[in-house]
């Protein structure tokens, strides 16, 4: 028994926690599917392994502030990356890569999404999915638009909050929510294409969702050259074509 005890002790002490050098990119949930394609395109010419961590922009920002080892942060807005820049956690100021669009989406056959949001008041709609406005820029855009048309208080009892735009989309896709607000890039992704009906909301009704990316200080510790290369790729013509394909507005 004593022998066993010490051999276990030895095994634990010698346990190797291997450190790897590769790029880790924090990606806003709305960019999840777009990122798969960006990665594939980038890896055609460069074999750097890119690990993707998906989450709500606000949550990822929080994690970066707590020291998460991300090299690049691809946000769904301008404010969160700016916050990191203000806290001296970035190598450069953030830059906008694309503008996102908000859609209203439903997979329930009986529900027809419309630009006129008054339909949300109807009795056939019992639950409306929205991303957490505190952490997800698409959520705060949806909240803005509901408040603008003085509908927020009337529908607040029906709101179901997803913690990121991907969880929100999952609520809608599984029909656990009757209808909901999500990103255009989600509804036209391969995963969701052809599921239900969606309508693009008037872009003038909410503050533009200017999606920005930023190079983080952590890149200095991992592989700055590789990180820079991928970061620059995000602003290349090839990447822009991909944003276009996924329904973003590119300038």
């Amino acid at each position, binding site marked *: 028994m*004593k022998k066993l005890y010490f051999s276990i002790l030895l095994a*634990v002490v010698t346990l190797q926690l291997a450190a790897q050098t590769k790029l880790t990119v924090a990606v806003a949930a709305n960019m999840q599917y777009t990122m798969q394609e960006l990665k594939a395109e980038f890896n055609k010419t460069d074999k750097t392994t890119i690990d*993707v961590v998906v989450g709500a922009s606000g949550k990822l920002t929080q*994690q970066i502030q707590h*020291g*998460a*080892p991300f090299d690049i942060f691809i946000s769904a807005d301008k404010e969160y990356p700016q916050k990191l820049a203000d806290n001296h956690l970035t190598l450069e100021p953030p830059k906008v890569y694309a503008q996102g669009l908000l859609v209203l989406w439903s997979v329930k056959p009986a529900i027809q999404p419309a630009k006129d949001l008054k339909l949300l008041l109807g009795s056939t709609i019992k639950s409306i999915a929205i991303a957490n406005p505190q952490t997800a820029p698409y959520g705060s855009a949806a909240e803005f638009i509901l408040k603008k048309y003085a509908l927020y208080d009337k529908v607040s009892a029906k709101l179901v909050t997803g913690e990121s735009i991907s969880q929100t989309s999952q609520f809608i896709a599984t029909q656990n929510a009757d209808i909901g607000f999500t990103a255009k890039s989600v509804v036209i992704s391969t995963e969701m294409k052809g599921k239900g009906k969606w309508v693009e909301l008037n872009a003038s009704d909410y503050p533009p969702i200017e999606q920005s990316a930023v190079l983080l200080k952590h890149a200095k510790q991992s592989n700055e050259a590789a990180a820079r290369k991928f970061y620059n790729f995000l602003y290349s013509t090839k990447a822009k074509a991909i944003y276009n394909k996924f329904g973003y507005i590119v300038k």
Partner: protein
Amino acid sequence: MIELAPLWLTLKLALSTTLILFIIAVPLANWLTGDKNIFKVIVQAIVSMPLVLPPTVIGFYLLLAFSPGNAFGKWLEEWFNIRLVFSFSGLLIASVIYSLPFMVHPIHSGLSSLSPSLKEASYSLGKTKWQTLMKVLLPNIKPSLLTAIVLTFAHTVGEFGVVLMIGGNMPGKTRTASIAIYDEVDAYHYYNANVYAGILLALSFVILLILYTFNRKMQQAKFY
């Protein structure tokens, strides 16, 4: 495309946690078994805390402690160049804390159920406390040891809340199987989620099956 990395990571985390906890829990449980005093009662309460605390509470405090922006995390980073938050080591520490009662309780109750005459006989034959523990007491509570090991392993495999809060979902480092399932469901990759979930389901069943089979055999072999 299904990746096996989350499963391996879960296995690595669960095995490491179990090993570390076994080493900590045996002396701890043995110490708790002796005469009761107020200090031991307090330690016992602390050991049991993770049973009743929401995982998010543990996760929240560890996040604060590990963060390089705060005193403890800063000290670790400046003195040892270690950053625990969003790392495997951090996850390991969290798991050890989180699964502590699952290892200590079965061993403690196993030791408490032994007749004091076993210990006394060993002492009167000139064995030290350590020899008595290793050669007399532990071999007599094998079913309890097995239960402790299996429960700790299984509990770590099933860990979610703590990992979600301090893990950061890093592939190959902190994305365990339970987090991967959550992630794949969000991404609407139900096939992948199904594969992970199915493997965990089968694993849990097999683990419990082994536990009960062995415990039955050992019960039958008991002769005292």
